[in-house]
């Protein structure tokens, strides 16, 4: 049985992967394997629960090298930190990973741990600490995370404003199979931030033509083109901007913004007809997108500049209607959030089973606000809060289920108590009798064994006399005693002689048959050993059963009560935290929706005035053409 270290199995962490070496690749600890089973499915709570218990147990054993987790302890401690990180327990994860760093571990494990610690710091915005952790990486680095480390280092430099260092790091990734596209884009950004505009333009141009293969690479390529186009547009190089904006795919995530900018690029050079093309396309797209909303106004504006005031008026009219509908939707959404429906929709189990649940939220008829919250939902700030809220909801569900378990435990203990309590006194009385008999027989057995052992070293034939021989010898002793002390008469001497002969006869048998008798005695004793072993086993089984009967209902009251209290307290805390976190999410969402509504209201006002203006101009144009 082998196990794949979790870190090497593609459970992506911020698009990066890691491997963890261990003492042994063959799985020797079942419970570590069980933790991995949960972890590979993304059940971090369960994985942590199992592994935490196993690592604690390992720490408590007297001879840890004899424990099965010994073979995986580096990996297990590392995984513990990893699971905590994934379960968003950064405080504990940091501690666990630091423990690995400070332990006497393999160089590769230490480097892996340093990388993970740096990531934690980076995620928390602690850039200096992240850099410090990265400087601890030295010597052999696990192959699977080499590029990840470099990318992290470059990202930290970029965030720190150390442009030259960031550029150097990104250059090292130019040939990386996983990071080349991202490095190309970020290299351009690093040069742009450093004020090296021309070089940045060249690099972004190259990044915009990167031979992308997957969706992420295609997206970053689009983004490079969009940034470059926008950069040129801002500096007034409208014609130069257009080709880059046109490179952006029409079905990519940046297409709306690119279409909008392409329209403005053409409008800026007074090429109104060409501006109409991207805006017409954009105006038909999903209206919740801010670029689409802007295009709804920009399109009739372009028609106005083309002196097509009638058509402009029609489009302004459509924009007015559309904005009105959207403003109503936004008002509904704000009300819906205030009624708590937003949070209810977010915690729906069937939504969370799907990795695209954020996208699917849009299809929920009872959560209209989600139409407008896609951008908000994608931000790290909202995601952190949302994940916390979802985690709290999960914990709450677990605690509520456990509360019901306690009632079942109480019932079970009570039933066992009622069953055993009347039976046990009689059983105990019988057991005491059995116990004393058992002790007696055990002592007798011990004496016999000792006698046999003594006979093997010091032969004592009389010890092996039969019951009849013992009786004869005792009778002879009595007869001899009856002869009295002192000088014997003639008859007595004859008797004494007869006694001596008879004693000799018995002694003859005892001595000549000694070995046979000893063998027989030993065989009988061995038979007795077997019988005693069975009796002992049954005795022990009985003792265990008796103890099990008591243990089945005694000693649970306090632990159950304590757990019940702990669960109740935790539930209260969770409810309070959920309220706070939920309220915060609702406020952020409402703020976003209000801002959207205000923006749309401004657009509506503009559309209304522009519509009137277009009608006037159309009417005037019509009058002029009639006069002519």
């Amino acid at each position: 049985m082998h196990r794949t270290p979790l870190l090497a199995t593609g459970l992506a962490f911020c698009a990066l992967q890691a491997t963890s070496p261990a003492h042994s690749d063959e799985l020797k600890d079942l419970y570590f394997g069980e933790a991995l089973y949960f972890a590979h499915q993304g059940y971090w709570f369960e994985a942590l629960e199992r592994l935490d218990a196993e690592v604690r147990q390992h720490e408590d054993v007297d001879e840890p090298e004899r424990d099965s987790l010994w073979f995986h302890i580096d990996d297990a401690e590392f995984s513990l930190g990893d699971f905590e990180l994934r379960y968003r327990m950064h405080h504990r994860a940091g501690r666990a990973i630091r423990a690995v760093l400070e332990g006497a571990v393999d160089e590769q494990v230490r480097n892996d741990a340093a990388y993970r610690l740096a990531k934690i710091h980076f995620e928390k915005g602690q850039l200096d600490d992240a850099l410090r952790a990265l400087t601890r990486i030295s010597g052999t680095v696990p192959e699977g995370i080499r590029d990840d480390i470099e990318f992290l280092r470059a990202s930290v430099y970029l965030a720190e404003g150390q442009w030259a260092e960031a550029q150097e790091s990104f250059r090292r990734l130019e040939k990386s199979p996983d990071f080349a596209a991202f490095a190309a884009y970020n290299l351009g950004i690093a040069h742009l931030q450093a004020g090296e505009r021309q070089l940045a333009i060249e690099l972004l141009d190259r990044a915009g033509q990167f031979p992308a293969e997957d969706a992420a690479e295609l997206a970053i390529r689009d983004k490079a083109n969009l940034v470059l186009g926008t950069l040129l547009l801002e500096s007034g190089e409208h014609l130069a901007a257009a080709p880059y904006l046109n490179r952006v795919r029409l079905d990519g995530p940046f297409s709306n913004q690119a279409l909008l900018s392409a329209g403005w690029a053409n409008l800026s050079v007074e090429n109104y007809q060409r501006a109409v093309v991207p805006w017409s396309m954009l105006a038909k797209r999903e209206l919740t997108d801010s670029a689409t909303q802007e295009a709804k106004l920009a399109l009739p504006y372009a028609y106005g500049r083309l002196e097509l005031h009638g058509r402009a008026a029609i489009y302004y009219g459509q924009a007015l209607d559309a904005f009105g509908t959207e403003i109503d939707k936004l008002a509904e959404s704000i009300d819906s959030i205030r009624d708590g429906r937003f949070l209810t929709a977010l915690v729906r189990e069937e939504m969370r089973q799907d990795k695209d649940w954020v996208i699917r939220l849009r299809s929920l008829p009872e959560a209209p606000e989600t139409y407008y919250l896609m951008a908000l939902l994608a931000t790290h700030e909202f995601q952190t809060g949302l994940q916390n809220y979802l985690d709290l909801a999960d914990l709450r569900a677990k605690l509520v289920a456990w509360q019901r378990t306690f009632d079942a435990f109480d019932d079970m203990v009570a039933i066992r108590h009622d069953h055993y309590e009347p039976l046990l006194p009689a059983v105990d009385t019988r057991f005491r009798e059995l116990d004393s008999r058992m002790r007696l027989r055990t002592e007798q057995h011990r004496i016999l064994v000792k006698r046999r052992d003594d006979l093997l070293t010091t032969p004592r034939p009389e010890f092996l006399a039969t019951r009849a021989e013992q009786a004869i010898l005792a009778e002879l002793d009595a007869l001899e005693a009856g002869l009295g002390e002192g000088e014997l008469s003639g008859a007595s001497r004859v008797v004494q002689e007869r006694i001596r002969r008879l004693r000799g006869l018995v002694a003859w048998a005892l001595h000549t048959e000694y070995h046979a008798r000893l063998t027989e005695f030993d065989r009988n004793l061995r038979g007795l050993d077997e019988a005693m072993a069975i009796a002992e086993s049954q005795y022990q089984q009985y003792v265990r059963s008796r103890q099990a009967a008591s243990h089945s209902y005694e000693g649970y009251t306090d632990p159950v009560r304590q757990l019940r209290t702990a669960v109740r307290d935790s539930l209260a805390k969770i409810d309070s935290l959920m309220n706070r976190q939920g309220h915060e999410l609702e406020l952020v969402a409402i703020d976003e929706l209000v801002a959207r509504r205000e923006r749309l209201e401004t657009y509506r006002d503009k559309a209304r005035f522009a519509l009137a203006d277009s009608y006037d101009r159309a009417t005037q144009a019509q009058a002029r053409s009639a006069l002519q």
Partner: protein
Amino acid sequence: MPTLKRYRLLALLAWGLSLSCAAEEFASEDTQSLDGQVQEIKSDVLGIAAELDNLEERLLYPSGTQLALFVAFEEGQDVEIDAIAVAIDGQPATHHIYSFRELEALQKGGVQRIYTGNVPTGEHELSISVSGTHDDGEDFSVSENVRFDKGVAPKALGITLAGPGLGGSGIRVGDW
């Protein structure tokens, strides 16, 4: 109209940084402390879960009678199974239908605890049936019977499945 003409280079650049894998913490102090409290309660609940597991094991599966069965895949074997059924002494003990994620977790080296229960000390028979589908779409089903001794200590048995198609019986059972 000029107000519409707002280019968002700065916003895009900022977005670039975040896409390059960065992430900022929540800005407000309140959120920081809220996040810390969420982490704390997670830790508390994990502690409760550990104690509850311990209590449950003592109450429901005393060591003298405890039997636990675990399923794992043979290393390097691409096993594709649909379901497993286990009987102890002829009585159905458990069965499980695998989801894609569970199979993947097993293939990556995870170990599934499929059964925890109680049996008296002595000799018992374990019957395992596994069903699945071959690459060519043909269904297969294999089974294996093994005897095991339950002593006074808790018993953990590992059921190791091999593939492809579980050639032979493809089921190996042993003490763990």
